[in-house]
């Protein structure tokens, strides 16, 4: 028996947990097609609605960018946060728990593993949508927008870990909650319109989801004329603070709920 360092175990766990996700991409190509087709059709439908309403041209840009970002949010919610419910169901969660690894590493592995599919999906929405509707972006903001995007992504995944801790403990109930919250969150985070339109209180509340501010900042950078909710600099700063904030909260919540779950027998899979 050799006892390896926590850091080594962390990275090996991330790679190992990502592996079946990557394999799934290869071995279930047909499934991936449908998996991608629906969100794309969803975004494009929204574009057509705006076109029918003769909305300003920018709005088409909002939808396309929102659709691309939605792909990442859905990945966080459905491929990461809720995954613990499945893992509990077949006993895999027990094996993750008793191994000398951490839930953070397992969750990060899930996220990394589905990154390829998600990025392709988001890319297809962005490229296809932009070409189809002739959306032009302010190329000057591109570099800054990529920076904001990466920051937003980091914050989203940390939030995902925080949510996952709930699934560790609540299982089914948390699942229903996630389903119930999905549409309101999509709406409130301004996926299809600038978040400014919601008024400051609602938009402020919606800003708890990093996607809201991140997306708004990217739109301001790439689509000139976007109504300003908060200036880009401040939005970026808030998202940057959300990264460590959610990371620390997730760590605390995972630790706390693991102990609660051990106490109440929630990590155990019963076969009878």
């Amino acid at each position, binding site marked *: *028996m*050799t*006892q*390896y*360092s926590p850091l*080594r*175990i962390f990275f*090996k*766990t991330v*790679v*190992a*947990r990502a*592996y*079946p996700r990557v*394999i*799934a991409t290869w*071995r*279930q190509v047909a499934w991936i097609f449908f998996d991608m087709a629906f969100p794309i059709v969803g975004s494009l439908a929204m574009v057509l609605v705006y076109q029918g309403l003769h909305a300003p041209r920018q709005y088409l840009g909002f939808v396309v960018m929102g659709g691309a970002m939605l792909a990442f949010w859905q990945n966080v919610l459905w491929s990461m946060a809720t995954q613990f419910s499945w893992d509990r169901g*077949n*006993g*895999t969660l*027990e*094996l*993750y*728990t*008793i*191994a*000398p*690894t951490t839930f953070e590493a397992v969750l990060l592995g899930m996220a990394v593993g589905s990154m390829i599919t998600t990025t392709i999906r988001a890319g297809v929405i962005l490229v296809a949508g932009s070409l189809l509707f002739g959306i032009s972006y302010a190329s000057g903001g591109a570099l800054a927008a990529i920076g904001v995007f990466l920051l937003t992504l980091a914050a989203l995944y940390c939030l995902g870990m925080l949510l996952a801790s709930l699934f560790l403990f609540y299982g089914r109930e948390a699942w229903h909650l996630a389903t119930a919250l999905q549409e309101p969150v999509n709406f409130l985070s301004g996926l299809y319109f600038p978040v400014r339109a919601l008024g400051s209180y609602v938009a402020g509340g919606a800003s708890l989801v990093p996607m809201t501010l991140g997306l708004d900042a990217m739109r301001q950078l790439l689509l000139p004329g976007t109504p300003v909710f908060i200036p880009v600099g401040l939005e970026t700063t808030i998202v940057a603070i959300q990264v460590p904030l959610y990371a620390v909260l997730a760590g605390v919540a995972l630790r706390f709920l693991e*102990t609660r779950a*051990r*106490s*109440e*027998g929630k*990590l*155990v899979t019963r*076969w009878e």
Partner: protein
Amino acid sequence: MAGTSPSSNSSRPAVETRQLGRVYKSRKDVVVALQGVDLSVNQGELFGVLGPNGAGKTTLIKILVTLLLPSSGQAWVDGLDVVTDYRALRHRISMVSGGENAGYGLLRVREQLWLFSQLYGMSSSAARSRIDELLERLGLAEVANRKITGLSSGMRQKMSLVRGLMTDPRVIFLDEPTVALDVGAARDVRTEVRRWMREDPTRTVILTTHYMQEADELCDRVAIVNRGEVIAHGTPQALKQQVDEDVIVDLQLEPGRPLLDALRAVEGVGAASAREEDGIDRFSLLLADDAVLPRVLSTVEGSGRRVTGLIRRQPTLEDAFVKLVGRSLHEEDSAENGA
């Protein structure tokens, strides 16, 4: 302070529990699954936990592998407190459960095992050679590249055993590892466990089972658990000595009216159990001495049932269990409550 094991370091037990208890609370009811369990398992021992369904075996295992917190008492594994030192302990243990279904169906056997090895930090190359070696030994080399979903339950169970052994734990917990396996697969599992222990004499195995014969043949020592309590422990030999003085008789009867309670009431019958096989009722009786047999036979006759066979035989662990618990391992607990 809670983290220190009561025993000295050099000869510390592999597992030690002190007044260990666990209660499950739900909205509807409170189940006392484990109560006042005191155990001490030495390094290098193959220790069996034997008991009927619902006795609390799995609960005990899950406390020891850090999945469940005890409600009362304390437990140490390899000298580490399962409550306070659980992080350090997780490097040193593994668990394999019978009927286990963990993992990802689309992965091949080798890939799945590699995935779990990484959670322990093993180098990929070391893991791969260890996995191949163990697969070979368990006769799974041919299915090493098969997807998990294509495995029979016996193969799956052996694969789980490979997972448990590959990380070279100090203590491995096997929760009914041969449950529902065919004779051959169960034998392979037992053989491999024995062999793995011989490789390093300080390795320890805790195995739960409700198969008497498995406990008798395989285990160095056995604890008999019933309704959450350890009611006896010792070597299978010592446990069988509990019934050494008794005369053990197996009766085969044609089907007919219930007889068990009447037999138990006969003076000199220490314990009785019954099971039905292929339409024949088999009764096992523990008699104080030979003189009790005529009284038993007249009771049978009085019930109008016909004896088709009668054997006097050597005591088994099952007999010791029946004497201690008052019923056989496979008899439903609820029958006593009239439920």
